[in-house]
C-alpha cells in the first residue's frame, strides 16, 4: 500500500490555466553536433524554447562529434548557428549567456568505447551540478547506419538506464524497407524499450497537422460525413518547387516514394483517416494511427502498375531561367532511375473507407510548393439547378498544411440576381491570420514533447513497419522496371501517367 510519506510532493505554484505545460529538467545529448540538422534546426529550436522560458532550470545540452572542440569553442559555433538560423528569435545576450553556460561538448569517434566512458563522466558531472534529475534525451542526428552502434555504445557504458528517465530520438529514414526497419528496431531495443524510442517525423509536429485532429475530433459536425457514404475520394499532395539542391547523391538512393510517402504523407493520411481515439493520450492516438496504416491494402505487382506512377523531372525553362533536369544535377548518374515524383492510389480496407481512393502524390520541381489534403465529397444526388453545369461542382474540404495553413470549404451558392444560377464559392479559415500568434516550429514542438514524454506525435515501431509493408510492394516492382525518364518537365504538375491514373476512376488532380 502506498503511504502518504512515499508520495512525491507536488509543486504548489502550478497554475495550469495560465502556465505552459510543465517541463522536467534534463540533459539533451546530441550525436552529430556539427551536422546541418543540429545547426539549422535543433539548436535554434532549443534556444527558442529557452528564450520563451519553456525549459526547466535544470537543463543542459551535450554535443558530440569527432571534431576536437572545447566547450567554449562549441558554444561559439552554436551561437553563430543560432544567430544565422533563428528566423524570428533575437539573440538576447543575457538569455544566450545562460543558455550557453549549459552547453557542453565531448569529442570522439562513435565506434570508440572511450567516447561513451567520457560521456558518462560528463553526464554524471552535469547531473550533480545542473540538477538535471538524472534525465537524459539522446538525439541521434547522424547517418542512420550509426544508430545501432551509438545505442550499443550508450548501453555498454551503462547510460541506457539511470536515476531518471532515458529517451532516444532518431530521425528518418527508419530503415529502407520492412526487413531493415525491423532489424533497426531490434538493435535499438537491445538498449532501449520501445516506449523510450522516439522516431521523429517533423511533419507531425507541424501545427496544422495537429490541427487536423482538433478539426476532426473537436467538432461534432464533420465526423458524420467522414466516411465512404459522403466522401468520394481524397487527394494528398506534398509538392516541392525546388530540385534536390545539392543532395543529388543522397536523393538518388532514396527517391520520392521512400523520402516522402513512406513516412510523412502516410502519417498525414493516417491522421486524416484514423478512427476517433478514446482519449488524447499518446498510446490511444498512436494505436488508431497504427490501425489505419495496417488497414491500407498492400498491392499485388499488377495493382502496382495500375495504381502507382513513378516520375523524374527533366530540364525546363521556368520564369525565364533554365532549370536542370534531375540527371543534370551534381552527383546524379546520367541514366538515373530514381523517382523524383511518386503518385499512388491507396485503398483502406475498413468499414469507414472501403472503396474510397486515397490519391497521394509528391514530387520535386513541381509547379509550386504546397502540402494539402483535399477531401472531395459526393455530388448532390439530383442536380435540380444544373442549367450551366455548375451544379456538378462537388463540395470540397481542403486542409492546407503549407504554405498558407488553413481550411477551406467549397460549396455552391446562388448567384445574386434573377434566375437560379449557382456558382462555387469558397469559405476560408486562415490559420495564420485568424490566430496571429507565432506558431512554434515543428522541432520546438517535437523536442519539447520528447522532453515531457509525450510521444503522441512520434512514430512507433508498428507504424513504421505498417507503412513499409504498404510501400515495399511498390518498391519491388519499380526496382525491377526500366522507366523512360525523364517523364515530366521541371515546373509542371508531374507526368501524364499520374493524370491517367485518376482519369480511370473519373477523377482529376487538383491544381492547388
Amino acid at each position, binding site marked *: 500500500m502506498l503511504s502518504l510519506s512515499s508520495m512525491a510532493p507536488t509543486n504548489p505554484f502550478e497554475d495550469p490555466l495560465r502556465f505552459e505545460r510543465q517541463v522536467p529538467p534534463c540533459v539533451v545529448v546530441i550525436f552529430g553536433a556539427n551536422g546541418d540538422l543540429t545547426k539549422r534546426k535543433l539548436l535554434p529550436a532549443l534556444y527558442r524554447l529557452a528564450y520563451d*522560458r519553456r525549459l526547466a*532550470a535544470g537543463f543542459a545540452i551535450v554535443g558530440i562529434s569527432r571534431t576536437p572542440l572545447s566547450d567554449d569553442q562549441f558554444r561559439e559555433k552554436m551561437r553563430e548557428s543560432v544567430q544565422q538560423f533563428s528566423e524570428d528569435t533575437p539573440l*538576447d545576450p*543575457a538569455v544566450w549567456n545562460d543558455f550557453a553556460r549549459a552547453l557542453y561538448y565531448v569529442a570522439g569517434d562513435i565506434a570508440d568505447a572511450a567516447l561513451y566512458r567520457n560521456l558518462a563522466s560528463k553526464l554524471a558531472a552535469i547531473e550533480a551540478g545542473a540538477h538535471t534529475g538524472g534525465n537524459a534525451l539522446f538525439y541521434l542526428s547522424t547517418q542512420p547506419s550509426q544508430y545501432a552502434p551509438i545505442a550499443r555504445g550508450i548501453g555498454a557504458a551503462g547510460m541506457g538506464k539511470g536515476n531518471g528517465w532515458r529517451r532516444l530520438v532518431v530521425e528518418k529514414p527508419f530503415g529502407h524497407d520492412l526487413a531493415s526497419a525491423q532489424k533497426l528496431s531490434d538493435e535499438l531495443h537491445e538498449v532501449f524499450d520501445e516506449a523510450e524510442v522516439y522516431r521523429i517525423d517533423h511533419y507531425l509536429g507541424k501545427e496544422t497537422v495537429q490541427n487536423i485532429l482538433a478539426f476532426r475530433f473537436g467538432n461534432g459536425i464533420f465526423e458524420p460525413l467522414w466516411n465512404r457514404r459522403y466522401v468520394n475520394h481524397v487527394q494528398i499532395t506534398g509538392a516541392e518547387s525546388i530540385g534536390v539542391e545539392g543532395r543529388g547523391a543522397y536523393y538518388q538512393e532514396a527517391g520520392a516514394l521512400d523520402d516522402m510517402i513512406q513516412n510523412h504523407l502516410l502519417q498525414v493520411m493516417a491522421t486524416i483517416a484514423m478512427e476517433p481515439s478514446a482519449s488524447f493520450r499518446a498510446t490511444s492516438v498512436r494505436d488508431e494511427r497504427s490501425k489505419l496504416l495496417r488497414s491500407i491494402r498492400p498491392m499485388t505487382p499488377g495493382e502496382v502498375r495500375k495504381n502507382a506512377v513513378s516520375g523524374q523531372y527533366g530540364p525546363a525553362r521556368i520564369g525565364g531561367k533554365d532549370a536542370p533536369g534531375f540527371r543534370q544535377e551534381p552527383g546524379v548518374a546520367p541514366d538515373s532511375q530514381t523517382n523524383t515524383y511518386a503518385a499512388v492510389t491507396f485503398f483502406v480496407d475498413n468499414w469507414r473507407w472501403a472503396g474510397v481512393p486515397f490519391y497521394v502524390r509528391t514530387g520535386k520541381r513541381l509547379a509550386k510548393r504546397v502540402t494539402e489534403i483535399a477531401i472531395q465529397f459526393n455530388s448532390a444526388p439530383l442536380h435540380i439547378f444544373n442549367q450551366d453545369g455548375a451544379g456538378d461542382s462537388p463540395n470540397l474540404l481542403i486542409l492546407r498544411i503549407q504554405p498558407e495553413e488553413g481550411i477551406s470549404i467549397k460549396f455552391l451558392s446562388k448567384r445574386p440576381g434573377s434566375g437560379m444560377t449557382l456558382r462555387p464559392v469558397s469559405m*476560408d479559415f486562415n490559420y495564420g*491570420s485568424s490566430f496571429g500568434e507565432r506558431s512554434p516550429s515543428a522541432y520546438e514542438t517535437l523536442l519539447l514533447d520528447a522532453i515531457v514524454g509525450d510521444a503522441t506525435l512520434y512514430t512507433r515501431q508498428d507504424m513504421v513497419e505498417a507503412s513499409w509493408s504498404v510501400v515495399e510492394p511498390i518498391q519491388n516492382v519499380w526496382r525491377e522496371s526500366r522507366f523512360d525518364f525523364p517523364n515530366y518537365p521541371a515546373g509542371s504538375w508531374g507526368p501524364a501517367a499520374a493524370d491517367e491514373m485518376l482519369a480511370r476512376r473519373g477523377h482529376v488532380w487538383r491544381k492547388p
Partner: protein
Amino acid sequence: MSATVSPDRILKQLADLWTAEGRQGDAGVLRACSMTLVVIAEVSDDPSALGETLAALMPEHPARTILVRLSGDGERALAERVYQQCWMPFGQRRQICCEQIEITVSDAALADLPSVLLPLQVPDLPVILWCRSARLTDLPERRELAGIATKMVFDSTNAPNPAQALGRLRDACGKGLLVADLAWTTLTRWRESLARLFDNRDYLARLAEVQSVRVAFPSGLASAAWYLAAWAANALGRAPSLVPGASALRLELSSQGFSVSLAREDDRLVTTVDGKSSCASLPAPTGYLLMREELAIVRRDPVFERTLELAARLAVHSSSEG
C-alpha cells in the same frame, strides 16, 4: 453632439461597410469574429495608443469591438461612429477585417448605454468588458454594464483606491461574475518562473523549510504586490510580509539554509537561489500582452479567485496600517 443612437442604424451601417468592402478588389475580405469586446475608456485616453492595442489584439482574438468613450460631465450626449479594422496577412491577397463601433457618451447619458450595447452584441459569442476607465468602478451604471458581460477586465493599478478596487472585484467574483485584474496578469511570467524553479525535486523538497514570504514593492505597484504575496502565501501556507518603498518589485522566500528571490531588473527577471542568479527576458508588459492573455481565458480561474480573496484582505490590512 446628438443625444440618441440607434442600434438598428449601427447594424445597418456595419452591413453597408461589409458590402462596400466586398466590392473593392477581386480578392474580397474575410470577416473574423470570436467575441464582442466592449472597451470603456475616457475621452482623454490616448486614442492612437488604444487603437494600436486593439488592432494588435484582432489577429489573435478577432472581435466586434465597441469602444465606449466617456466624455464626462456636461449635457446629455450620445454619438456613434462605425468603421472597420482590416489587415492584410503577410504574403496573402485577402484582407481580414473586424468591425469597430465607437460610441461617445456623457455621464448624463450613461444609463442609456446598456440598452445600446445589448443589441450590438454578436450572438452566441462571449462579451468581454474591458474597463480602462478608473472612474467607472465608482459609477452606479457599472452594475448594469456588468450584467451584459461574460467577463469583466479591470486594472486595479490605475484605480484611485486600489484596495477598494480589489474589494469590489472580490465582491463581484463572489456573485459569480468572471473578473480579471491586469495587475494580476502582469505576474504570470513571475509566477511561472517560480513554479518552474520548483520543478527541481531538490528545491521542491526544501520548500517546506520556507519560513518567510516577503514582497517588497515600489509605490504604484501595491496591488501587484498584494497579489504576489497572497499567491505565494496561499501556496506555502505562510503569512506574508509586505515592504513598501522598494525600488522594484521583489519576492523573497527564505529559511535558515535556503533562499529564493525573484526581482525585475530592467527588461529581465532575475531569479536567485542561494545566492546564485540567472535571468530570463521579461519585457515590460504592454496592454496588448496583458489583454491577449485575458481574452484567452473565458472561464473560471480558480487560482486567481483564491488569490483575490486573500489579496483583498491584505489590501485592507495594508491600507489601515498606512
